[in-house]
């Protein structure tokens, strides 16, 4: 390396590793590294136990209320699923077999699960899975036959009107996604969600069970609704509380019997301590920090057995709900910061072993690289609006700085009074180069949600959830997964009069006329708006059908019993009825925002203002995918582009965002739902791009769109400051139909070098806060490293990179996504 280059910490460690040097963090995190080595680089093993036990129970309970059936299925799982405790682990509780593993949810995809597993096991993908013949046989012989005709996606497939179905699927069965107005709901039973872990730690399930029993005793026996709705809900809660406690006690038994044969006295004592904790929590309130961690761990693991939550159940505000017992133990002298780091490591390494397996093609494409991001939230404000940063916030940051794994994702809440030390440690963690933490901005999120109707205390206490979203765990009630609208397709349908290059003569959008005959920009823009509204309307229909269909297929007695409002009303969180006091924060995604804005800008500038290109020439060039039209393509890329603080492009972006929100403002009320506009693509910018031919911004056919609300790949040439100001410019501050906006920035390690680099990154984060942007995250890496990792994936197996709201191993991503990441602008400075 010449002295002009700098490496991120991660790059340095990878370089040292290749030279045979030990990871410098190992000494302090021995247990983490020891456990990590047992599964590092392993293809996840599919474990069918949860699916089998769930199916067997559901077979026996047909005809009963759904939430009661779900609780009984959970009980069957708790009673019979094999339990394991890993060597060296201090925490008990996993959802499946040892090593790196994934579990199955036949209620989602049971009807085609056997075939999907066969093809996934054979597929040569960057992220392979391992399916044993025994598991394949169980799925084919016992699971799939029961679920045929009963799954959610089959019901959804039957229920969607044909004109919407056509935009969502390429096949009659509704398995192969058409990424025009795609849906996310059929491969997860819930949108991202966060449990109220404080309740688990501070009350325990015995107390929740007692509350349900009290309510059950107080029901009016003459009330038909009490009998039909409330009673099954409460019975389901009681069974579920018993189930999780039984499951914990089975771990206690296992730990005790392992201790009996354990020769190493230190490990024997650890096992006896585990046994003691498993007998205490999560049944009763945790008495110390160690019990609190075990209680949280059981709750999140059991919730994974309950349902497939989008991106996996998030961890909530860990530095808040653990703090009281942390402080108590530290003051009593029974807990050191090193003990805390070790317990956190045990959690992280447990999360890293669980992978979120998608069987449907849509799920595979939109969440690449075994994507799961059980976000841990730190920082922010307390319920009464004071800064909430504490010693645990710093310990969690420190722990994630040293950990060579993408899991869990780390979210930091920033506000105008966030301590400088907090921002400094965040900047230092960003500089490690593993893509976390992501930043959430209280100065945007809190006022916006007040406008959406949140109570002050609840929104001060919000937590990051999933990718860039937030939750108020006792106030939110909407868990339907969002649809995704392809903005590039809307534009292509203007240029092709309702058709798309990929689908030939099929009329997919509206026939807005031959654009060659348009009189000017205004007519073009109006035609675009019609296409956009048409797709938004389809996504609204899709969301409504999804929302009402889900209630017939899913229940979540665990998630519900931890929610104040569900307990108060005796309603399951999956209900499609309005839960009294609840706020629903639903949304649809718009995909390809910057690609669209740049394309509209190029049409406006080149065709209608400068008249340097005719519409006919443009359409012919797009038809030819710019082959033989390179000069024209380059002229188009010179039009003003989003991400440069240029109001020519940014005002178009502002209008696109506003018109989308205006649609929501007009039509959401009649649906009875909130369906706002989110600008978070996850990895959907890749499959959505694959649907659409060449576009006027100069993007070639089938290439990825821009991601989230980030500038298009290579379009932001005026540096990171202009890039984030453009994001500010395109927000409609007077509309509250806006939702999360994800923004990625890639820095070269050189421009963040040293303390002065850290200091400038801190200032940059302060400005992000001042600008009231929702979210920001960073990749700090040299382009050369990514190219080298493509060449030699084995050597770079541990290279972690930021994707879209989560980090993943670079070499486990598809080539398309890898190339997308490489092509994003790297911000340097001279």
């Amino acid at each position: 390396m010449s002295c002009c280059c700098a490496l991120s910490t991660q790059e340095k460690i990878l370089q040292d590793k290749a030279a045979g040097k030990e990871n410098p963090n190992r000494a302090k995190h021995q247990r983490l590294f020891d456990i990590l080595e047992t599964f590092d680089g392993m293809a996840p093993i599919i474990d069918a136990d949860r699916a089998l036990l769930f199916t067997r129970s559901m077979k026996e309970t047909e005809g009963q209320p759904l939430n009661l059936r779900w609780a009984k299925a959970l009980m069957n799982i708790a009673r019979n699923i094999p339990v394991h405790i890993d060597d060296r682990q201090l925490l008990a509780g996993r959802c499946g077999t040892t090593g790196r593993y994934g579990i199955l949810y036949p209620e989602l995809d049971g009807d085609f699960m056997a075939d999907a597993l066969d093809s996934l096991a054979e597929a040569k993908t960057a992220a392979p899975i391992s399916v044993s013949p025994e598991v394949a046989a169980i799925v084919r012989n016992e699971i799939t036959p029961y679920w045929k005709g009963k799954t959610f996606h089959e019901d959804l497939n039957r229920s969607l009107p044909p004109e919407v179905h056509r935009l969502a699927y390429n096949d009659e069965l509704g398995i192969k996604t058409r990424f025009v107005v795609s849906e996310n709901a059929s491969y997860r039973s819930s949108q991202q969600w966060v449990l109220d872990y404080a309740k688990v730690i501070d009350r325990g399930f015995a107390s929740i069970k007692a509350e349900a029993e009290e309510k059950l005793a107080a029901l009016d026996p003459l009330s038909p609704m009490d009998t039909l709705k409330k009673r099954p809900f409460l019975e389901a809660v009681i069974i579920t509380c018993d189930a999780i406690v039984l499951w914990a006690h089975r771990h206690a038994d296992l730990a005790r019997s392992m201790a009996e044969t354990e020769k190493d006295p230190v490990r024997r004592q650890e096992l006896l301590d585990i046994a003691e904790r498993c007998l205490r929590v999560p049944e009763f309130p945790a008495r110390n920090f160690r019990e609190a961690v075990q209680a949280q761990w059981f709750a999140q693991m059991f919730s994974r057995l309950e349902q497939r939550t989008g991106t996996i159940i998030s961890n909530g505000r860990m530095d808040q709900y653990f703090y009281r017992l942390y402080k108590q133990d530290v003051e009593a002298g029974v807990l050191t910061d090193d003990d805390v780091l070790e317990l956190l490591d045990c959690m992280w390494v447990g999360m890293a072993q669980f992978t979120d397996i998608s069987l449907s093609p849509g799920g595979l494409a939109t969440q690449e690289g075994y994507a799961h991001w059980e976000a841990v939230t730190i920082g922010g404000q307390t319920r009464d609006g004071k800064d909430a940063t504490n010693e645990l916030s710093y310990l969690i940051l420190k722990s994630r700085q040293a950990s060579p794994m993408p899991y869990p994702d780390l979210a930091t809440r920033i506000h105008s009074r966030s301590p400088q030390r907090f921002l400094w440690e965040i900047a230092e963690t960003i500089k490690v180069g593993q893509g976390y933490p992501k930043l959430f901005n209280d100065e945007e999120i809190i006022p916006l949600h007040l406008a959406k109707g949140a109570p002050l205390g609840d929104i001060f206490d919000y937590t990051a959830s999933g990718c860039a979203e937030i939750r108020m765990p006792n106030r939110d009630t909407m868990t339907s997964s969002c649809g995704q609208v392809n903005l590039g397709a809307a534009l292509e349908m203007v240029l092709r009069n309702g058709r798309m290059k990929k689908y030939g003569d099929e009329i997919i959008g509206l026939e807005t006329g031959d654009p060659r005959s348009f009189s000017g920009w205004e007519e073009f823009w109006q035609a675009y708006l019609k296409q956009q509204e048409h797709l938004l309307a389809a996504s609204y229909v899709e969301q409504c059908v999804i929302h009402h269909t889900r209630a017939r297929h899913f229940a979540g007695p665990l998630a519900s019993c931890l929610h104040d409002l569900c307990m108060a009303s005796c309603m399951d969180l999956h209900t499609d009825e309005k839960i009294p006091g609840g706020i629903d924060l639903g949304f649809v995604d718009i995909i390809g925002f910057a690609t669209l804005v740049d394309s509209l800008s190029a049409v406006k500038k080149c065709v209608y203002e400068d008249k340097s290109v005719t519409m006919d020439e443009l359409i012919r060039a797009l038809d030819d995918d710019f082959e033989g039209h390179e000069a024209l393509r380059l002229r188009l890329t010179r039009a003003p582009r989003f991400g440069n603080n240029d109001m020519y492009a940014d005002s178009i972006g502002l209008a696109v965002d506003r018109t989308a929100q205006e649609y929501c403002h007009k039509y959401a009320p009649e649906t009875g739902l909130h369906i706002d506009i989110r600008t978070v693509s996850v990895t959907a910018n890749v499959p959505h791009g694959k649907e659409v031919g060449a576009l006027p911004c100069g993007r070639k056919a089938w290439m990825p769109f821009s991601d989230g609300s980030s500038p298009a790949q290579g379009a932001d040439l005026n540096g990171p400051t202009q890039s984030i100001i453009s994001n500010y410019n395109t927000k409609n501050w007077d509309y509250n139909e806006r939702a999360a906006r994800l923004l990625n920035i890639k820095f070269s390690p050189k421009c963040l070098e040293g303390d002065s680099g850290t200091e400038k990154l801190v200032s940059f984060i302060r400005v992000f806060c001042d600008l009231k942007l929702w979210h920001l995250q960073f990749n700090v890496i040299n382009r050369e490293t990514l190219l080298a990792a493509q060449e030699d994936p084995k050597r770079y197996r541990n290279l972690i990179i930021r994707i879209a709201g989560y980090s993943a191993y670079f070499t486990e991503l598809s080539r398309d996504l890898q190339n997308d990441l490489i092509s994003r602008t790297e911000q340097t400075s001279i």
Partner: protein
Amino acid sequence: MYADAMEKGVVFNVQKYSVHDGPGIRTIVFLKGCPLRCRWCSNPESQHIAPDIAWNDTLCIGCRSCVQACPQKALSLSAQGIAKKHELCTGCRSCVRACPADAMFLYGGESRVKDILDDVEKDSLFYARSGGGLTLSGGEPMFQPRFALALLREAKERHIHRAMESCAFCSEETFLEAAGLLNYLLVDIKTLDEEKHRHFTGQSNSCILSNIRAAHRAFPDLPIHVRTPVIPGVNDTEKDIAAIAAFAREAGAQAYELLAYHKMGQSKYRFLGKEYPMGDAALDEKNFKSLQALAASVMPVSPAMPS
């Protein structure tokens, strides 16, 4: 002042999010034209005050639009790419306008103080949060004294923090007038050896050294940050560096920093159709590190930040 805002000069680049040239997050405005001809110059496009037409071979798509557009018939497509008869070029920019690929492009253009500072001001939030602001660089900003001083006066009017990166080769009067408008001065000293200085830069260093002394005498509170580009075969010896460090300390500078020779300007020589004067010269990294240690033993690398 209106007159300052309307003043025009030649600028060849505006660089946002600059983090290596002065405190905080800064915007660098590069003024064109330089009195020195340092052999290692990494900004060859900055040397002449007149705009330079350049050709980027990697962007060129070979469409010949520029050849056809040139009214002087100064351009032709040869086996080596676009060839230019420099003597025929009038700088009319027809070729630049015709090129669809940005391969034919212009280094430098005339700008007004107002427009430059409007652009600089777009990042005022970043300056406020980081203690950053405007840095004038070049070329040599003092090569366009009227324009540079107007930029500094107008930036002061707008309460933008002002730094200047200079070689200090100009009249004392101009230099002191600029210094009076600055919050921070970055100044380059290549070598104290006058003969060597003349040989490698084309000019004597005597007014450079006296200007630095004069600036400190006149404005003792102005932080002066001396830098030396360490160039193989020119000044990469302990003797050179120790002498400059001693001078910097004695002249009242607050910091002394060594910059490693790099070849990042090489492609720009190619675009301009010029030979790269340094050839394959490379800096010995180990030697550079020990020179850095030597410099650091005399003075800090960056000024102590006001707390």
